[in-house]
C-alpha cells in the first residue's frame, strides 16, 4: 500500500480539520470528495508531508514521514499540486518545471528529458518558452501539474487539478490521470464529481473531517438512487451520503 492512515487527526486550535481518518490506498486514481471545509485540503497537506498530524499514524510509500530521512525519501517520490498554485512570473514554463525537478533531486543528467516529458504530457510544448506571467489560469494549472509529475511520482496528490481548465483540457487531463494511475497512487481532491466518475477507480467522501463514504464511483451512484438531489447520478449519490452523514 502506498498510503496507510490510521485514526489520523489534525487540529487547528479548537477546530478539528481531520478527525480520525483511517484509509489505505494502492496504485490507482483515488477521488476525494466533500464540501468546503470538509478537511480534504488538510488531509492532502498531511499526505504531502507539509503538515504534521496532531495524532494517529501515517505511512507513505512504506516510510514514516515523521523521520527526516524517510521524509526526504517520500518527497523524492512525491508529486503535489496545491489548490492555489504559487509561481514565479519571470520563469518560463521549462525553467519552472526544471527548477522543481532539481529541487526534487532528479539526477541532473535526467532532468532535461524529465522536463520535456512532463511538458509534453501536459500539452504545454507550444508554450514551453513562455514566461509564466503571460499564461492564462488554465495554462498555469497545467504548469502546476507538469511540475507535480516531473519526477514520475509514485504518489501524486492533486488538489482541485481541473479548476480553471476548459472542457477539452479536462477530458485530456482525466486521461492523463488514468494513465498515471496505472503505476502510481493518484489522490484527487475535487468538487467536480464528473471528474471522479470519469477518472477514479475509488472514491472517499469527507464531511466535517471524517470519511463518511468509501467505495467505487458506481457504489456512490447507487447511494443516490431515489434519494439524493442533483442533475447527475453521481451528484445524487454525493448529496444522499452527505445528507445521511449530517442526519
Amino acid at each position, binding site marked *: 500500500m502506498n498510503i496507510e492512515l490510521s485514526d489520523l487527526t489534525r487540529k487547528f486550535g479548537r477546530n478539528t480539520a481531520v478527525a480520525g481518518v483511517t484509509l489505505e490506498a494502492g496504485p490507482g486514481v483515488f477521488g476525494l470528495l466533500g464540501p468546503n471545509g470538509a478537511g480534504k485540503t488538510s488531509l492532502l497537506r498531511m499526505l504531502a508531508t507539509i503538515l504534521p498530524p496532531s495524532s494517529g499514524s501515517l505511512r507513505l510509500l512504506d516510510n514514516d514521514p515523521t523521520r*527526516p530521512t524517510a521524509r526526504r525519501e517520500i518527497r523524492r517520490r512525491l508529486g*503535489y499540486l496545491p489548490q492555489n498554485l*504559487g*509561481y514565479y512570473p519571470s*520563469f518560463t514554463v521549462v525553467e519552472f518545471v*526544471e527548477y522543481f525537478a*532539481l529541487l526534487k533531486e532528479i539526477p*541532473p543528467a535526467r532532468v532535461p528529458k524529465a522536463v520535456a516529458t512532463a511538458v509534453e504530457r501536459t500539452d504545454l510544448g507550444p508554450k514551453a518558452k513562455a514566461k509564466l506571467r503571460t499564461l492564462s489560469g488554465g495554462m498555469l494549472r497545467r504548469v502546476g501539474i507538469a511540475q507535480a509529475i516531473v519526477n514520475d511520482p509514485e504518489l501524486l496528490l492533486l488538489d482541485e487539478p481541473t479548476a480553471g481548465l476548459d472542457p477539452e483540457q479536462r477530458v485530456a487531463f482525466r486521461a492523463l490521470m488514468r494513465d498515471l494511475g496505472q503505476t502510481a497512487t493518484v489522490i484527487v481532491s475535487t468538487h467536480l464529481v464528473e471528474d471522479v466518475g470519469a477518472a477514479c477507480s475509488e472514491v472517499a467522501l469527507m464531511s466535517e473531517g471524517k470519511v463518511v463514504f468509501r467505495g467505487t464511483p458506481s457504489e456512490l451512484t447507487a447511494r443516490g438512487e431515489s434519494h439524493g438531489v442533483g442533475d447527475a447520478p453521481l451528484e445524487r449519490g454525493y448529496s444522499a451520503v452527505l445528507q445521511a452523514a449530517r442526519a
Partner: protein
Amino acid sequence: MTAVAPLARPARVLRLEIRRSVVPWAIPLIAALFFFDSFRTAVGFAPVWTVRSSVITSNMITDFGPFAAGLAAWVASREGRRHTGDLLATTVRPAWARQAAALGGTLFWLLLTFLIGVAALYIDTARQATWGGPPVWPVVVGVVEVTTFAVIGFAVGALFPGRFAAPLAAIGTFVIAYVGFHAALGVTPMTGTYALLSPATAVPLGDVGVFYHVAPDVAIVQVMFMGGICVALAGLVVVAGRASRWLWVAGAVLLAAGVAASSTAFALAGTAKLSMSGWDIPALHDAASDQPVPYTPDCAGTSFKVCLHPAFSLYLRDVNAALQPVAAQIAGLPGAPVRAEQVASGSGVRSVQGLPVAGTPATGITGTPPVYNISSEDPIAPLWGTGAMLAISGWGAGFAQEFLTAYVAPPNTFMPNPAQQAVVTALMTAAGVGAPQFPQADNSNGTPVGPSQAQIGAAATRFQALSPAARRAWLATHVPALRAGHITLAQLP
C-alpha cells in the same frame, strides 16, 4: 564526440536563479547613481590610487548598499509573496539550499555590477596615475560590504516575507549604516572610533597612502565585522527555518561564530589610534607599515627647484610655473627658500584635521637650508581632477601669495600685518603674477580696524616703485624685523 557532463544540481539551480534574477532590472539605476556620485567624486580627486579608491568603500557603498539590501529582500520574500511555500515544502532540497541559490543569484549580479564599477574607476585612474598601483583592500572591503547588505536584506525578506520587506530593508540599512551608526558613534579619537566599522568612512586626505603606507588594520576589522554579520544572519535564517535538529545546531553555531567575530571586530575598532598611516589597531598593526614609502621626487627648475612626489607629477609644471616668478624676487635673501618640496599632509583622514598627530611635518618654510614645504592638501587640493591648475582663475596668484606670506610672516599666519601685506603685494606685482587678496582686518563688531586697503595699496606701490636692487637691499636687512611684525606701513621705503 564527447558527452558534456551535466552541471551539478546546485550549479543548475544557481544558473536558473542568475538567469531570472531581478537585479538586472535595477542595474541601469545603480549605474546612473554610480556615475553621478561615485565616479564623478573620484575623478574630482587627484589621480592617486589610494585616494581615488577611497570612494569604493564610501560613495559606492552608499550607491549599492540599499539596492543590495532591497533587491535581496525582494528575492528572499518571494516564497511568501508568491505563495510557493507549500509547493516548495514538498521538495527534497532543504530550504537553506534553496535560499542559498536565490541569494547566490542575487549576489552574482550585484557583485558583478560592483566590480565593473571598480574596474571603470581603476581604468580611469590608470590612464592618469603617475605612480603606484591599484589597491586591493578597498575592493575586498567593498565586496564584503555589498555582500553584507545583501545578506541583511535577504534575512529580512526570509524572516518577514511580504511586499514591504524590500523597501523596509533598503531604507532600514541606509538609516542604520549611514545615519544612525555614524552620527551616534562619531569617528574621532575624542568621540569614539567604533564608527570606523561603518561603511560611511571619512573622505581621505589627498596624499593618503602616498608618503606612508595605508595600514590594513581598519580594513581587516571592517571585513571581520561585516563578515560576522553575514555568518550570524545565515545562521539565524537556518535556525528560523525549523529544519532538522542537526541543521538547527549548525545554524546556532554559525550564529554564535558570527556574533563572536563581529563583537571582536567592534572591540578592536575601539582601540584604534590615529597615526601617519591612518588608523592603527594595535592588536593587528604591523610596525613595518609605519615606515615612509621610499620615492624619488620629480623636480623642475634650475636655481630654484620645485619638487613634487611622483604621484603628483601631473601638477609639477603648473606648480613650478606659479612659484618660479615669486621665488626669483627673494632668491638669495636671508631665510629665502632654496627649493620647494611636497610633504605629507598629515594623518590621512580629513575629519580629524586640527587634532595633533605625531610626526606631522610643519608647513611653510623650515630647515637649513630653508625649504618651502608644499602640503598635498593645500594649495594643490583645489585643483585635483582638472589637470590644468593655471587654467583656474586666481590659482597661481593664490599659491604665490601663500609662498611669499610664508617668507615675510611667521609660520601659520592667517592674516599678515599691513606692512607684510604691502610687501607681498609689491613682490607679486613686480613678479607679474597678479595681486594678492587679503581680507580687511576688523573688530568683533565687523568694524574695519587698522590701515585701509587703500593705505596698504599705496605703501605697496611705493615699495614696488623701488628698483629691484633697492628692494632686495631693504629686504636683506629688514626681513627679520618684518617677520617679527616690527615694521609699520610708514617704515616701508
